[in-house]
């Protein structure tokens, strides 16, 4: 090896650290799907009841509430009016609220929305793909996302009362991007 000995040793060490580091790091930091405070929510791209496409990036820089719901889930149905009231109250302050339906028939969703009188965007998930991306285990699940793009809070299950929603919205609006 002669005078190339040192460079060769360094080169081999560098390759080992790169490949080995990648391999070990991969297993050390494998992400679990459960989303928690501080995580970035997975991107979604879904169509709404008016056949408009909504992308995650449409809501960049704004406080966003994502409510995963279905007509088959009684607590989801029961908290819809509260969500609608809060949306009416805060939408002029910049709050964005979307409801992602859990892969039900368009017709079923449409008739329920009409009954309750919801006017915030309702997106239709297909083949449970988005709910799997978000690692949902229970319904309803509501994500409160700060303008900075990070999840500020995840509420799993239960019927959200107007006060509970309002408190969280206030926290969202206060946090700066």
């Amino acid at each position, binding site marked *: *090896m002669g005078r190339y000995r040192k460079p060769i040793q360094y080169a081999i*060490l560098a390759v080992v650290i790169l490949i080995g580091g990648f391999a070990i790091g991969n297993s050390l930091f494998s992400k679990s*799907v459960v989303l928690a405070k501080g995580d970035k929510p997975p991107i979604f791209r879904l169509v709404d009841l008016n056949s408009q496409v909504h992308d995650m990036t449409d809501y960049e820089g704004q406080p966003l509430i994502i409510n995963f719901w279905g007509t088959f889930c*009684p607590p989801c149905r029961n908290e819809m009016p509260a969500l609608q009231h809060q949306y009416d109250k805060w939408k002029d302050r910049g709050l964005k609220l979307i409801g992602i339906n859990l892969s039900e028939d368009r*017709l*079923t969703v449409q008739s329920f929305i009409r009954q309750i009188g919801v006017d915030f965007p309702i997106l239709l998930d297909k083949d449970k793909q988005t709910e799997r991306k978000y690692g949902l285990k229970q319904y309803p699940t509501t994500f409160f996302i700060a303008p900075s793009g990070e999840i500020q809070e995840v509420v799993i299950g239960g019927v959200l009362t107007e006060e509970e929603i309002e408190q969280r919205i206030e926290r969202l609006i206060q946090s700066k991007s």
Partner: protein
Amino acid sequence: MFQNTKCECGHQNPVGTVLCESCGKPLDEALLKDEKALLEMRYDGVARRSQKANPHFVDRIWNFFSSVKIAVYLIVITLIGASLGTILQQESTLINLTERSEFAAYYKEQHGTFGVIYHALGLSRTYESWWFIGLLVMIGTSLVVCSLDRVLPLYRALSKQQIRKHMQFINRQHVVYSGELTEDKQAWLDRFAKELKRKHYRVLQEDGALLGEKNRFSRWGPYINHIGLIVFLLAVLGRSIPAWHMDQYLTLYEGETRQIPGTNYYIKNDKFTLDYYSEEELANNQKGTKVVKLYETKARLYECTDACNDLTQEPVLKEVKQHDIRVNSALTYDGLKIYQNSYMEKVRFISVHPTLKDVAGGSDIGSFDLRMDQPEAEYKLGDYTLKLIDYYPDFGLDEQTRPMTKSRDPNNPAFVFRITGPDVQDKGELHIYFAMPSEKSKYYESILNESFKQRGDSSGRFSIQVENPIVDGKMNNIEYSAFTTYLNIRMDKAMPYVWVGAAISMIGLIMGFYWQHRRIWVRIDGDSLSLGGHTNKNTYGLRADVAGALGKTGIAVDPKTLDNRRNVR
């Protein structure tokens, strides 16, 4: 500090050389004095690493990984670690669980305290854990460093061998012969050379000295084996590239088409078949039991050709492959392999073909296909139009006794139609239709239709029902799925490289095991003939070669007497 490494033969050796690279004379004073001791011929005595007073930290790392002892320790620890992963079922086989808490609960439930400890130590995911991968990385590094450290000096040593070796070199080999030679030197050497060539040795001669060498290529065997192992390990690492590896599961009921997540492909389950052996086919001790003969999914693979990412449209699909997937007979296409994994016996409505009747007039208006999944919004039957305004896949009543669906599966589908037509009131008539022919459903149907009538939304003249639901004992006008199949979808683009690595490794092993590198040095000084032989394995065979060649040239020796090791023992 500076050793004089110039040999008496005139060759300048690098620091750390044990035997002169040219003539083979032992360079170390102590080694030179101990005339009876056998020579350490590893790597032909060439300097393997530079000995420095203060090794650089890179040298320290290098020396650590170039040690065979360390490599053996690494392999043993990896072996023990890998065996621990076989004690309990690993997490990667539990396909329904995803969260750490779920796994912890599973191991606690199934295996008690041992399970809790096993999971906490990370042994439930042994082969993906950081320490196991770390060990594999270290073994890989050791492979590279060990090989480089040894193969380069070895290649140098074997390429520039001198023919006439130092007397000590020859007399301290494992196979040695010394005796008197009375006849003509050159003639004898030529005869000896001829004998060796008959045994396929490559013979080189110099004035009064001879070198016969055979099968040098077998020395490279272990290094080629190591190259193969390195390729193998890198290929295994390649599986962690997302585009190169997929292992996911998809459930499909009969007739369902679903997209394979992460690809542009869609898979359809045409039919699932579950067959049992008949009584005659069963062995005597199994008669009376149910033994499965066949699990089969008739599947169709589609590729999306248009509107694939357009959410407002249905994707345009083109069929690319059809295959009857059975256990171990996968549907393969473009690197994708789709295997039969499991099934569930569960009846699921797909569609019905009901008829709209005018009860008051006593006639049938028409019949139509009604899907349970994403049903059509409008149905035209002659002059009448049915508009679907509400759909409950699994009809039930909520706490306020309002209609709702209990789940997303069509276990008890209910359809609310608005019927319009020439002799119907302007706002149309409401009618609710339950597809399931159960008593409770029919009860709901009649109650709700009655309430529509009370409200003035219906005249009660229409009815919807399936004609002749059972014909010859079979379901008629009703389509349903009897089974849901679980398919395992896999892709492993790194496999060809794994095979290549394994093949190279095998070639190296065969090269190293089935041939031996043999060398025979002869020198004649005056009347005395000195012969030394070396091989990396199978010294017995070398002795036989030497005795045979000597015997043909007139010197009869018993192979056992050639063994120099007896003298030292």
